[in-house]
């Protein structure tokens, strides 16, 4: 069918890749400017995150963690996007986005406490600029929008970044946030990690839009699509978006095409909605393998390095889960005291029933 002369047009988008799955540089022009030490640090964080994820899944099976959303497969989009930020930029995560807030400064044992259903998990330390993980899909998009509004009003050169998934891009709050950011030209980055499934619902059933990145067009903000299995592409795109935000050029929507290797949560079974073939196709795009190949060619990384980081990560996870387990349980009276700045008399009186 031919296009109407008065019909709105949009062009297809090609995701940004810097590396091929074999670790070859395919797009030198978009190579982020990173030192060898920085490249190694990024690899360290991705391997650490993968190991932590494996350990967390096991800890979940053992009943030592509660709700946990696995992250394997998404290390490039998670670790890379956080790495591209300044420490005083503000992160509003969804529930799967633990790696970003931990690498931004939340102690790991607090992430474990959050999973174990302990309030101290959300007591973000002073000087760590993150929110607690959000459960209501998309609600955090508006918080990032408000944080960005605050940065803009105060004239601070900071950006807010928020994360959701392909499912989250169907929420009203997603569209409302994008539209506010466009109208107010806010320093905010909306990252959609399109991992193909909203729990079990495939992306094809999520939207008829050409891509999630295209949704930016309607709000008048920049929309870009990135190979989310390529950490260098992720860093490039987020750095650029942060730079734009700091320069007063407004918001960016970044769709990262990625895949979660594991189930949605510990209660999910991927065999009911995806094929082994599909999982196999994505496993060859593994962000860690790809980046390792790139680093090996530069002589910056070896298998021994990976083994060393894994051991270090296991030991760190061990130490932090023990610290989480040793933390005193929450109390009902403590809960009551966290409702308001000053506990009103009627609530104070209710403590008596729980002593």
């Amino acid at each position, binding site marked *: 069918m031919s296009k109407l002369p008065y019909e709105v047009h949009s062009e297809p988008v090609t995701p940004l890749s810097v590396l091929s799955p074999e670790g070859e540089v395919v797009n030198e022009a978009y190579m982020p400017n990173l030192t060898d030490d920085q490249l190694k640090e990024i690899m360290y964080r991705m391997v650490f995150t993968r190991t932590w994820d494996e350990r967390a899944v096991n800890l979940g099976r053992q009943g030592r963690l509660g709700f946990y959303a696995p992250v394997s497969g998404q290390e490039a989009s998670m670790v890379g996007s956080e790495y591209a930020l300044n420490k005083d930029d503000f992160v509003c995560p969804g529930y799967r986005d633990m790696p970003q807030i931990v690498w931004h400064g939340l102690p790991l044992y607090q992430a474990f406490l959050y999973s174990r259903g302990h309030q101290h998990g959300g007591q973000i330390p002073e000087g760590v600029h993150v929110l607690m993980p959000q459960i209501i899909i998309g609600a955090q998009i508006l918080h990032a929008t408000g944080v960005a509004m605050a940065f803009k009003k105060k004239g601070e050169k900071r950006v807010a970044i928020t994360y959701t998934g392909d499912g989250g891009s169907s929420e009203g709050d997603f569209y*409302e946030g994008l539209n506010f950011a466009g109208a107010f030209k806010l320093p905010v980055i909306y990252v959609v990690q399109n991992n193909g499934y909203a729990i079990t619902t495939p992306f094809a059933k999520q939207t008829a839009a050409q891509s999630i990145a295209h949704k930016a067009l309607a709000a008048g903000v920049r929309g870009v699509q990135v190979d989310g299995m390529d950490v260098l592409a992720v860093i490039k795109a987020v750095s650029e978006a942060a730079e734009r935000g700091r320069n007063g050029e407004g918001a960016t929507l970044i769709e990262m095409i990625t895949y979660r290797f594991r189930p949605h949560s510990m209660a999910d079974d991927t065999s009911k909605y995806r094929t082994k073939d599909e999982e196999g196709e994505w496993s060859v795009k593994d962000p860690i393998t790809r980046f390792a190949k790139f680093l090996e060619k530069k002589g910056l990384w070896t298998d021994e390095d990976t083994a060393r980081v894994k051991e270090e990560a296991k030991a760190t996870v061990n130490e932090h889960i023990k610290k989480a387990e040793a933390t005193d349980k929450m109390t009902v009276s403590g809960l009551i005291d966290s409702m308001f700045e000053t506990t009103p008399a009627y609530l104070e009186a209710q403590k008596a029933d729980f002593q």
Partner: protein
Amino acid sequence: MAQMNMKEAIRDAMRVELKNDPNVIVFGEDVGKVGGVFRATEGLQGEFGEERVFDTPLAESAIAGMAVGMGLQGFRPVAEIQFVGFIYEALDQMFVQAARMRYRSGGRYNSPIVFRTPFGGGVKAAELHTDSLEGLAIQTPGIKVIVPSNPYDAKGLLVSAIRDNDPVFFMEHLNLYHAFRQDVPEEAYTVEIGKANIVREGADVTIIAYGLMVHTAMKAAEELEKNGVKAEVIDLRTLLPLDIETIVASIQKTNRAIVVQEAQKTSGAAAEIIAQINEYAILHLEAPVLRVTGPDTVYPYAQIEDSWLPNVDRIVKAANQVINF
């Protein structure tokens, strides 16, 4: 001392706090140049500039959610939701995100936000403009609920709400905006959140009300007086925290009470007040506590709203019922 109606007093509360605290910020739909559909923010943008008093795109969830985000960075947002029925669009951001911020962060973050909204019946408005949704709010842990009945209280309570470090749902009855004028100090002053006001003393029956219904209750009390019944009228001013002490003290004197609200009968503020009276004052009661409310239907279209709403006759009847029990 100036004479102000309730709308002017509300505007004045925002004006004095915008002046007192650079972190106070006012936004919502149409609140800027024209000062809102009821002109409650009229002149504020002119006085304080577009940086601090501004229009937003039309999206209530984003208005409330942006307030939450700004609250994280030290601002004290006063966000207007244009009409009460529109809070349904913003319930997650108001009643979950703002109300749970302190709890979820173990006290690290808070939401020092006032969500202002006009509500209340009797003005022949469009659908969903006049409902009484305070019942939803009082069942929500973590948010305070204020319903002023006069200009003096409205200014003092709104100043308190803006200075409060927890979220406040501030409900302004449409029929009170221009109803009457009162002496209102021009400087900033506070009325304590959680303190009711005895607006008429009496020994025979306690009438508990809030918002516009305080005035309907006062008229009913005058009617009752004609037959020698002395009604005590309590203006709650705040629904959460509820000033149960003032209610109990009154019932200890009158031994009889009725609760008046515009909202539907089931659950809600009146039901909660009666539950607490049972808890704290049952041995002082000579009769069951009755409710005078709207029926358990949706708030009706304008044609029958005057029959739907509680009125003087129904209040007098209920008062006589508890007196003659």
